[in-house]
């Protein structure tokens, strides 16, 4: 069993390829990040970042339990629309944010990576739930199929623990992602909570 577990990711040839591609040490990747951008304009960058942060269109991509909480999040009580993130696009080409809501197993892994690659840049990933973060309750001896953490396959921006996380946690995750993109927590402080609330 232990041996199987070790070779868990190697069984799927495509998965292996993915790991190599997103390995931080791969020479190709460093080359891209070192190349200077053609136009370096701080203001336009800032404006575009602001726009990106406030218009995160998620991909309709529910895997398991957490998908229900993701749905709840878009529904009447929690309403992701307030942050402009309610436009769940079914096509990866039109979405900016992939919320990996649930367990990824070896059969799903290649599909997940394909979807990620089909998203146009700039793209963001939120790993929602313990399974997507690190395997969660399936990180046990008996496990032979679950990929222990989606960051083994694609780069992840924000991790949201919980089994499943509450919708508030997902909203917080999206706010964190906004902060990560713009460097500010509330770029548009319209309905900011008063101090001490």
């Amino acid at each position, binding site marked *: 069993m232990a041996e199987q577990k070790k070779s868990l990711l190697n069984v799927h040839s495509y998965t292996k390829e993915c790991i190599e591609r997103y390995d931080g040490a791969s020479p190709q990747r460093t080359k891209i990040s070192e190349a200077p951008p053609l136009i370096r304009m701080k203001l336009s960058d800032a404006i*575009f970042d602001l726009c990106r942060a*406030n218009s995160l269109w998620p991909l309709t991509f529910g895997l398991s339990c957490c998908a229900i909480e993701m749905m709840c999040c878009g529904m*009447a009580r929690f309403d992701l629309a*307030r942050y*402009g993130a309610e436009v769940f696009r079914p096509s990866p080409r039109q979405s900016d944010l992939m919320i990996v809501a649930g367990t990824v197993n070896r059969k799903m892994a290649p599909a997940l990576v394909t979807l990620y690659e*089909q998203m146009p840049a*700039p793209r963001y990933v939120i790993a929602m739930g313990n399974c997507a973060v690190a395997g969660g309750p399936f990180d046990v001896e008996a496990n032979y199929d679950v990929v222990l953490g989606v960051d083994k396959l694609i780069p992840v921006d924000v991790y949201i623990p919980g089994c499943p996380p509450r919708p508030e946690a997902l909203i917080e995750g999206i706010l964190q992602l906004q902060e990560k993109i713009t460097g500010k927590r509330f770029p*548009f402080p319209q*309905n900011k909570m008063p101090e001490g609330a």
Partner: protein
Amino acid sequence: METFYSILPELIRIVVCAVCGAVIVFGNALVMGYAERKLAGHIMLRPGPMEVGPHGIYQLVIDGLKLMGKQLVVPAKADPLLFRFAPLLAFAPVFVPLLVLPFSEKIQGFDLDIGLLVILALASINLLAILIGGWASNNKYSLFGVFRAVSQNVAYEIPMLLSLLAVVFMTNSFSLKAVVAAQSPVWFIVIQPLAFLIYLVSIVAETNRAPFDLPEAESELTAGFHTEYSGMSFSLFVLAEYANMFIVSSVATVFFLGGSSGIPLPYFEYSGIIWFMLKVYSLMFFLVWIRWTYPRTRFDQLMNFCWKYLIPFALVNLLITVVMVKLL
């Protein structure tokens, strides 16, 4: 040189019209996009966009800028030329119909004798763009969307034309200004209620909106014909959709709701435009309202509805109109 001076006012007029058209197209998309999301929110017991600006009014600007900043992906197996060309083809022709629309008695680009024909001819180009885009994507879902879009739009163009033709028979003119002028005592919605209903149903199908949004039926075809489009090319399709909504609603206003006629406001010569816009946006509100209320129809039901009910009724309506016009 003399000829240049003689056409100069005309040139300036064209430039001004084009600029105004662009303003209307983009402004309309912003307003409608925001209104649609906000209205959808309120229909669904939630606030809708809230954080970006007061009550989220900058949301659409933000979305537009973001879409501009997105990577444009051309799928590896797509036809690159047609794939890039399709969104432009969808977007470019929406300006022309705006030139002939009589926003008020004095605000009109060109009063053509064949105004209606220009609008209908150019509105159909959008369909061609959808066809090209869906075909070039080399995606089965897109292809499906295209099948549906083409058969649906071609079918629904017939009742739409027939219902407008009834009005044309009454006014004896294709000129939009003449149609508006002919409605001075009573609007044609009173005289031609059936034609108006048929037209209203047809425009829902023509603009591919729910409950007839089969070309982009989300639960069946993921995103329909624009499945493979990203970033700005996707938003051009959306802009074209909203502009088309505006155009068909304007035609409805001109032909059935008395165009710019209304209670003249004091001290304002161009008050007609306010009435015109009010009528157009009420129609668009109606379109948004039914979109968020009804389930989607099935494709064969949609086509049966057109060929078995709408077209016969439209023909009968036209026949009665012709007979009445001859007799009276």
